[in-house]
């Protein structure tokens, strides 16, 4: 097995350079949005909300907020990262280079996941200024952070390969991921829902991701942590399979 480390590094570095050039916009946006969330939900509404499972409401929403950003940023960065060279035609060079499909995925997904994890960390730091954030299981917190960033970057990569236009890059995040996140307990515990809705929510895969991540913070979860972990790994495996199939079939990349 050979590994083109120079090639992977070159793509990774190149992708992150775009991020570095716009680092202030890239990092200020999450800082400002997070602050707004805490001003609205934390101070204005949160003060009238009771604690959720013994956690103050402001602190309770932190994992959900980070997850929401991880999802959207990972998908956006990875889908854009691979769609753009397809759109401009510069993909010819990647297709003609001695890099294997696995290396291409590693580089693009690695870069996208790095960016979204950076943004997730910035949100966490910002939140810390507003509310008392606790991390009971730091190992699992980091594990969920990485796994989620990588999984959604893979998902974004798939969308980027599939998309035929810039609108299509937006469709899935906007119509599926964001609604599922809001309905997936980012800002509430699904235990607070009426039983019928609660059962219904369990069909939402996002519930498992957020619940697991929140458990790593506060030791409280909507569903068992093992189930969360399995669901996250399952989604990760599914994305890997699809990416593998894309390269095997040359789907929308080669003639």
């Amino acid at each position: 097995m050979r590994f083109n480390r120079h090639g992977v590094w070159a793509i990774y570095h190149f992708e992150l350079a775009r991020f570095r050039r716009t680092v202030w916009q890239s990092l200020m946006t999450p800082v400002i949005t997070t602050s707004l969330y805490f001003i609205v939900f934390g101070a204005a509404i949160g003060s009238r909300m009771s604690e959720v499972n013994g956690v103050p409401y402001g602190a309770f929403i932190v994992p959900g907020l980070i997850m929401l950003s991880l999802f959207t940023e990972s998908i956006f960065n990875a889908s854009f990262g691979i769609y753009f060279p397809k759109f401009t035609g510069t993909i010819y060079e990647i297709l003609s280079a001695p890099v294997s499909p696995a290396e291409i995925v590693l580089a693009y997904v690695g870069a996208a996941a790095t960016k979204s994890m950076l943004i997730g960390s910035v949100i966490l730091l910002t939140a810390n200024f507003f509310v008392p954030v606790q991390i009971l299981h730091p190992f699992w917190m980091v594990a969920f952070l990485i796994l989620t960033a990588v999984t959604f970057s893979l998902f974004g990569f798939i969308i980027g390969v599939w998309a035929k236009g810039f609108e299509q890059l937006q469709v899935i995040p906007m119509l599926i991921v964001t609604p599922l996140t809001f309905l997936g307990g980012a800002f509430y515990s699904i235990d607070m829902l009426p039983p019928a809705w609660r059962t219904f929510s369990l069909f939402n895969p996002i519930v498992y991701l957020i619940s697991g991540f929140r458990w790593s913070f506060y030791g409280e979860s909507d569903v068992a942590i093992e189930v969360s972990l399995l669901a996250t790994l399952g989604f990760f495996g599914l994305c890997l399979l699809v990416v593998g199939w894309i390269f095997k079939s040359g789907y929308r990349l080669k003639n």
Partner: protein
Amino acid sequence: MSAILSISGLTKTYASGLQALKKVDLEIRKGEIFALLGPNGAGKTTLISIVCGIVTASSGTVVADGHDIVRDYRDARMKIGLVPQELTTDTFETVWATVTLSRGLFGRAPNPALVEKVLRDLSLWDKRKDKIMTLSGGMKRRVMIAKALAHEPSILFLDEPTAGVDVELRRDMWAMVRRLRDEGVTVILTTHYIDEAEEMADRIGVIRKGELILVEEKATLMRKLGRKQMTLQLQEPMQAIPEGLSDWNLTLRDGGHGLEYSFDVHEEKSGIPELLRRMGELGIGFKDLNTEQSSLEDIFVSLVSTRTESAS
């Protein structure tokens, strides 16, 4: 000389059902400049794209410097550089960044000194910090060449390198190709500018409708197919070619003011002295005379059109 690139039985049928290549066999020799000549849609880009790994062949094999391009794609591709036909660049990046990316992509360790040399050779050094979108079309093309050379390939493909390129760049490019050849790089270029093939190539292949219809040393090709025209400016215009001159291949030009004689340069006898003598006997005078060697362009046109006629 040994072959650095062996293409055998290469066919490509696109998903649309169009057969772009039909069993192409071709050997490229190490260190030569090979021109692939053919009209638009002949399959030149398809052929190059398969060798470079951008398009998957329907059947056939390609071996580059001893490495099968599918089984042994890493070694094969490290040897190959490609300047594609279309100008596609990373608009928002700097020249330096995009050329450095190319070197890494092809598995080479960073080497700023080499990248500097490539950029200097292409007169891009002053532009290295500029974003590509601020460059002119000609400069962008230079950037694409720099990208293709950044990993020091031993086989370089130039797909219509001078289409829509100004005179200066064209001249620079030819100089660059010669320099590369002197360094031992094998260059394969496609073009439909015949003068380019004529000027640059050691060997020429002609492709038409996915078929390689001819591969020949340029010199041999010119000799084999070269014809000369002699045009006589007549003193008195003529309505028709007189009976007495029917032994020669003559055409009237210029409304009867010119008489053109076309002959093969390799015939034992050109037939010119006899023609002139006979004209004297018939009392046909002429004011002026000039001869012209047919260019590769004429060869190409005659070749392609003969094939078209025989096909239809």
